């Protein structure tokens, strides 16, 4: 497993880096080391019931496979194990590091992405289950160098301190405002209830989302 501590940096920079496809030496090394460990595993022989409705091959399933992931409109082939989460596939294999792995238990929201337009925790989603689905990460929010109105509002309202939770908050905010462009403060709190900010800058986040909503209603 790649050491995650080497990425503890604000996300503003990784955004442009990943857009331009820059490769980080350290990540490249870790990626190479990880890939060599992926080998075709032999599925254990299993009993097929008397009913025999499943053929032996169907019943065995797969322990690893090359899958295609559609991330921010781009298709990527990636080899994953059955246990590989979407978060790990995105970060460790595809170098799409906007989604952060913090709690790795579906509690903190830092790994939040959209899958077929629905907000999910990528750390609790198997990569194999993301095949054929439309995945959106924070990297897909801005239009080139033009920030999304929600991102602008986060900057204007100073809605981040260390910034590690920000990609998750941005995804949840976007999902919330895509469904409801005129939320009440209570609806904003509910919409962001799956995201934790350990620095505690919630009031600024809520303010930013309300401000972004107003801007977006005006077509900004």
């Amino acid at each position: 497993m790649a050491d995650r501590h080497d990425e503890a940096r604000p996300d503003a920079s990784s955004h442009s880096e990943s857009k331009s496809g820059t490769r980080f030496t350290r990540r490249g090394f870790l990626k190479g080391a990880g890939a060599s460990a992926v080998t075709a595993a032999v599925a254990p022989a299993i009993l097929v019931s008397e009913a025999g409705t499943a053929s032996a091959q169907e019943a065995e399933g797969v322990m690893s496979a090359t899958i295609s992931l559609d991330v921010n409109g781009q298709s990527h082939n990636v080899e994953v194990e059955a246990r590989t989460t979407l978060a790990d596939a995105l970060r460790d294999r595809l170098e799409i590091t906007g989604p952060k792995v913090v709690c790795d238990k579906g509690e903190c929201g830092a790994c939040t992405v959209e899958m077929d337009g629905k907000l999910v925790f990528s750390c609790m989603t198997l990569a194999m289950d993301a095949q054929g689905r439309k995945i959106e990460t924070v990297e897909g929010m801005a239009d080139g160098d033009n920030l999304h109105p929600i991102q602008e509002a986060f900057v204007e309202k100073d809605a981040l301190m260390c910034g590690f939770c920000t990609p998750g908050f941005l995804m949840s905010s976007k999902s919330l405002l895509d469904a409801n462009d005129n939320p009440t403060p209570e609806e904003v709190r509910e919409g962001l209830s799956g995201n934790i900010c350990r620095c505690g800058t919630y009031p600024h986040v809520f303010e930013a989302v309300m401000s972004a909503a107003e801007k977006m209603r005006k077509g900004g």
Partner: protein
Amino acid sequence: MQNFSYVNATSIEQVPSLLGRSWDDAVVMAGGTDLVGEMKDYAAVPKRVVNLKSIEGLDYIRQDDTGMRIGALTTLTDVLADSAVSQDYPVLHQAVSVIASPQIRNMATLAGNILQRPRCWYYRSEDFPCLKKGGARCYAVGGVNTYHAIFGSGPSYIVHPSDAAPALMALGATVNIHGPRGANEVVLDDFFTMPEMNIRRENILRPNEIVTEISIPKPEANSRGMFLKVRERESIDFALVSLAAQMTVVNGTCERASLVLGGVAPIPWRAVEAEVYLRGRRITEARAESAAEAAVEDAAPMPHNGYKVEIAKNLVKQAVQALAA
């Protein structure tokens, strides 16, 4: 997480043959929000995971004159958004609205929610080979038991973590179970099992059986319901104590009460004594208090969780008064 073999099921009929004779052989997965966490904690180490999401037609909410049927792949978000649920089954709507977070509700299914494994910190820790994992003792006994059971007499003191299960049980819901010998329907009161029946599990499901549907009978015309949940955080937290209440009240007199507590016992805990006490009685504040006392009559708190008795009492009193008002 240990790697496993991943199988996409294509029909309900196929699933029993894809599963094994032991829980270590194979498990089913729908939303995965509980199972993936369990596998990360090595509380579950299955050789094979059978994906149900690849089965067509299990994602539905259907209503007719007799009640509502909800398919095994219906997500909590879909239940929450359904207007028939919020109108006719408010206890279920309210329960689902306070489950976890939007991300989890988008992934997790209603059926999966009632099949959640315990959140006990000893069960979820690799360092404690507890009774639930085939070990010799329950570490809550003599350990830190702040979040453990106040009802039941062990030998495991986990609490059932589901919010939806008490609500469904209060509504008299049934589950459809599909196994190697076909399907059968079981009322939730008979579905969940205490540790003395099977220390390793919380319900009657066998390793090669799955829940395919949840059916809820239509509540009586004068019946009303509500769900109350007390938790340490306002969002994304399990219940310290919850209460699902469904009551039929005519002219201030309770004809029938269905009261199920969550977070207090290894299964959703029906407060039978309180239900019996309330039947046929005109509801007053004093009687709501008596019902609350009856609900915790059998409570046997552990050294660190006596506070749950007080919360349970308060919830019963509050719900009985509110539903009679």
